[in-house]
């Protein structure tokens, strides 16, 4: 049983970890200084959430730590979603990725605060406050870009079109989902699809952005340990020091 909770914590923790890593890459590159600060706050929240879930995962597994899970795990043992692995192509991609994940997080964590697993519900009660803020922030930016200039509308539309295929994975159930649902620890991923779609669609429509057709693109998902090519490079960078100096502690 613990195996599946472990897997579930990895999925949530790894996704937040990798997204915050991508936000870290963007540091000092935002369009205006105020935005640099704001987006870093989101990155810090996500990193904190990742740490909480990975700490719990480490306890469930025993004889390991969140740091060891982060810096010494092999790529195929990561469980992060493909969407968070996608690169920082420009502000439109960064924002769209964030907005899609914020909507997903809000629908997911609204369930997790009632989890039968006390650790998960505890972490989630703190996280949901942060997530609600993230979503307000990204929603406002979607409106600014969508309704700002023709050019910004096109760039946002392009990012939405390109990233849309990665949203499919968010709502695929695997064995872990089924087990979590059975134990009342977490919802079936598939059950999140409707509320998520409503949330996303209403904002995108208000921003004059067309909602793409759902498009199942692959059966190999991050939550099952099959990743995009991007993840290998992220880990190569992130894990570089602990792997190069295996005896050192940091």
């Amino acid at each position, binding site marked *: 049983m613990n195996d599946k909770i472990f897997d579930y914590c990895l999925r949530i923790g790894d996704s937040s970890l990798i997204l915050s890593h991508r936000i870290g890459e963007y540091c000092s590159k935002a369009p205006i200084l105020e935005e640099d600060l704001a987006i870093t706050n989101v990155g810090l929240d996500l990193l904190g959430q990742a740490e909480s879930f990975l700490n719990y995962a480490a306890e469930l597994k025993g004889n390991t730590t969140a740091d060891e899970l982060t810096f010494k795990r092999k790529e195929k043992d990561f469980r992060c979603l493909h969407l968070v692995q996608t690169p920082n192509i420009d502000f439109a991609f960064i924002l769209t990725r964030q907005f899609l994940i914020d909507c997903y997080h809000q629908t997911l964590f609204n369930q997790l605060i009632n989890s039968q697993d006390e650790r998960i519900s505890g972490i989630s009660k703190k996280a949901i406050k942060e997530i609600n803020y993230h979503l307000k922030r990204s929603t406002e930016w979607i409106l600014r870009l969508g309704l700002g200039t023709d050019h910004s509308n096109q760039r946002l539309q392009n990012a939405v079109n390109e990233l849309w295929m990665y949203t499919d994975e968010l709502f695929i159930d695997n064995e872990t989902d089924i087990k979590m649902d059975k134990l009342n620890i977490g919802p079936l991923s598939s059950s999140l699809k409707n509320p998520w779609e409503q949330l996303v669609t209403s904002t995108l429509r208000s921003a004059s952005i067309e909602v793409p057709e759902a498009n199942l693109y692959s059966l190999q998902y991050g939550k099952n340990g099959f990743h995009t090519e991007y993840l290998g490079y992220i880990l190569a960078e992130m894990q570089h020091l602990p792997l190069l*100096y295996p005896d050192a502690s940091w």
Partner: protein
Amino acid sequence: MEDEKKLIQFQQKIDQDIKIEPRDWMPEKYRQTLIRQISQHAHSEIIGMQPEGNWLTRAPSLRSKKILMAKIQDEAGHGLYLYCAAETLGIKREQFLQWLHEGKAKYSSVFNYPTLTWADMGAVGWLVDGAAIVNQVSLQGTSYGPYARAMVKICMEESFHQRQGFEIMVQLANGTKEQKEMAQDAVNRWWWPSIMMFGPHDSESAHSNQSLKWKIKRESNDELRQRFIDKTIEQGHHLGLIFPDPNLKLNPETNHYDYSPIDWDEFWNVVKGNGAGNRQRLNHHIKAHEDGKWVREAAIAYAKKSNLKQKSA
């Protein structure tokens, strides 16, 4: 005649430690000096995000990743406080950025040095921030109100930065042989650049005297430099690391540490922007600014449309 009277009154205010506020009369040269100094300070905070950002994606623990991210964010915040303080002198942020991009405005040349290993995150925090803090603590008493207030806020927030750096140094100095070597190498590379951060010797400094008289600066370059050296050497001994200066010795007469002559050729070389670091830092900033142009345009257009809508509603 009128100006001369005002000038005397101005100096009297300064002498009585009354802060000068944006709408008060001030000599044009006072304003110009502040514009140069505060914007240079702001640019330094912003450019200073880059050498540390260079290791953000390679921080070796979750804790250090989190701390480094928060620290770089603080630097963005400090740049922001300072740009706002500088703006009270009647220059807009757009103009400050343009001067930076055109190479007309300077920033602290220490940020042109590369950060080559993780130990540099320790050395930058401990030595570079350490030197900056000595300067900033002194500037809390600067005569221009908005600048002084920004400094008070910055000093309050900076106190964790130097500790963060020192903590990394402690960890490395007590770590494996390779970690110790890494720490020593970083001290070797960052010691002299941090000492040079205080600028030329008092005898060579172009702006110092008038700035001291107007209390824009409260202490001279050499006084601040000496204070930094004295307190840092004690900390270094605690780490068991060696400073790259064989002449560092406590002088029993002055009770201060003596040090070797500074290599000013290197200093001026870096200040003048020779070397790869300068191009890299500026190009990074310019690229981010240009990449963000369409986003800023969208935000401006959106704000205008929302205003129109509100008015017609």
